[in-house]
């Protein structure tokens, strides 16, 4: 990993490289938004204002920021229950995300979906899926539509290391490869399925990349904590997809700083592991990167302060918002808006 990173840095000698200052600032902002919003979600959970379960991506922000920043409007994201990061990265307002976690009427789905199902079609976030693996074939279908209609959008599907062992993973990858679909599969390898180390339950060291050959795809493992590396990898996968070159499978090495879900104190971690990864905190790393590119501390702090303010505002907005009204309990089961199964 260290090697990948060094190469990356070496290739970036100024603000006017392939990424450029504007995108970099935007990627930094996105990562800070995710960090602050998720940290807030955790605090609100401790105050019993976030109910149900929730799965944070603190420590994994660079993956979401890199892939989203490289997208064009119209590209589609398919996420898991650990989908707050990807949802925010597509520009969904913080209050809509926190509102859903807090089960308020202003939430993205007015409380009907909850933390594990964030969806914002307007932003290209085509859903967060809570059955492991289920969305990989679904992303194939969206990509098929693009291919069929001659559109140039790409479907990007995020999932974890543990997901590579379920049948739907295999079916989707083969299907996408055979049909040459414009879909990009992104495995966020955070070393754990739920509480079990991925290595304990997987036949190969790299759960996604070591399987790519089964689908005629190249092996790709990247440093998922370096947003620049992620961004560049994303760009080339999207380009390939748009050019009719078919799917990609990308394994991003990363780490979640918190437990699997809000219920998990993560005691199963070997000593020092968290600290080691905190040393590679994607946000700290990227902050340094910005400075290396000559961006001033004041610019960076301005972003940070602005994001914090927005998260505060969103929090207040959500706290003040009412719960969903009773009458939406039975709406939108069917396309006529209702739930009638009989006449």
């Amino acid at each position, binding site marked *: 990993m260290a090697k990948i990173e060094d190469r990356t840095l070496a290739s970036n000698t100024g603000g006017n490289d392939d990424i450029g200052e504007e995108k970099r600032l935007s990627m930094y902002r996105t990562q800070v938004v995710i960090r602050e919003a998720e940290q807030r979600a955790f605090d609100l959970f401790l105050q019993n204002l976030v109910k149900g379960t929730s799965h944070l991506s603190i420590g994994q922000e660079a993956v979401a920021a890199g892939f989203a920043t490289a997208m064009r409007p119209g590209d589609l994201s398919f996420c898991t229950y650990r989908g707050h990061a990807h949802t925010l990265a597509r520009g969904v307002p913080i209050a809509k995300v926190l509102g859903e976690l807090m089960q308020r009427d202003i939430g993205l789905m007015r409380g009907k979906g909850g933390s594990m199902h964030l969806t914002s079609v307007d932003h290209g976030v085509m859903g967060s899926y809570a059955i492991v693996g289920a969305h990989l*074939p679904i992303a*194939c*279908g*969206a990509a*098929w539509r693009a291919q069929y209609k001659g559109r140039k959008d790409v479907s990007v599907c995020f999932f974890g290391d543990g997901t590579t062992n379920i049948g739907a993973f295999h079916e989707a990858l083969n299907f996408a490869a*055979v049909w040459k679909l414009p879909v990009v599969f992104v495995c966020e390898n955070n070393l754990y399925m739920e509480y079990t180390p991925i290595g304990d339950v997987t036949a190969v060291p790299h759960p996604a990349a070591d399987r790519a050959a089964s689908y005629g795809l190249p092996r790709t493992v990247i440093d998922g904590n370096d947003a620049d590396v992620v961004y560049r990898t994303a760009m080339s996968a999207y380009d390939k997809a748009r050019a009719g070159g078919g799917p990609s499978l990308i394994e991003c090495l990363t780490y979640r700083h918190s437990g699997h879900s809000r219920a998990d104190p993560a005691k199963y971690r070997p000593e020092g592991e968290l600290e080691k990864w905190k040393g590679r905190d994607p946000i700290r790393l990227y902050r340094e990167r910005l400075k290396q590119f000559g961006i001033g501390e004041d610019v960076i702090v301005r972003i940070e302060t602005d994001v914090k303010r927005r998260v505060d505002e969103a929090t207040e907005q959500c706290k003040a918002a009412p719960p969903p009204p009773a009458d939406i309990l039975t709406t939108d089961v069917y396309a006529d808006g209702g739930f009638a199964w009989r*006449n």
Partner: protein
Amino acid sequence: MAELTYRDAVIRGIAQEMTRDPDVVFLGEDVGKPGGVFKATVGLYEQFGPVRVRDTPISEQAILGAAMGAAMTGLKPIAEIMFSDFIAVCFDYIANEFAKTRYMTNGQVKIPLVVRTGNGGGVRFGAQHSQSVENWCMMIPGLKVVAPSSPRDVIGLMAAAVRDPNPVIFFEHKALYPTKGDVPDGEIVDTLGSAKIVRPGKDATILALALMVPRALAAADKLKSEHGIDCEVVDVRSLVPLDTQTILGSVARTHRLFTVEENPRLCGWGAELVSIVADEAFYDLDGPPVRITTPHIPLPASDALEDMALPSVERIAERVRRSLGA
């Protein structure tokens, strides 16, 4: 008007909708070039080409998942699951994804697709290729579920299913594929959620579906000619939405209810219908509502045994006669 097999009606129904709407696409195992294992999709590949009619790997989850993703984003896929028993290998899409996504997203996502599948027994395929699994789908909120019994209904309900903005599970009965019926010329479009009184009668209501419809009709004829019992036979056709008006209306006239279900006993669609009638038309009923079903067993392969398992004309007639005390 032409006489058509149920099998050819499937082809015509799909072709009608693919001709009408270029966003209708069709995928499944061996459905394209080979024309389907039941020969119920012969010619579609030739007519609509390899871009709209696609052969897939043996990957039922990918088939349904892809159909859903395409439906969410603007296409209207028809997906084939060859035998309805295989719904078990892709049930997550049926139960958890298709059915719940619109609700969970507060209506943001719509999923207009059709899953068509070969359902039912009588063809000596054994326990894993003969089940009637309409109830597997009926029980899931968010789906629509239809099961036509005649070639005409195949076309009309297929059209209605494809045009419906919801996920529709379309059960074709394998034993009906070779059966024939008259079909009008031109476009046929039916309505989901309407039952059909296929034989009016005054002494009892018999509810049936798919292959059980011709059997219920034959039983009604037998009951009439041999015992003077005049049964009304209702082809339920659509389990969701359910035409409870027609059903309750019939029971209000006949005062007796029988269901003829090919599914094994427990939690079959007849249980639901009986529970509705027992609650809402309790005082209309002159005697106990009776369910005639396949016994609660897996289906045997042997012809002799399978014929004993499924409700037969004789068993239906005998059970009704006995209940009516004739």
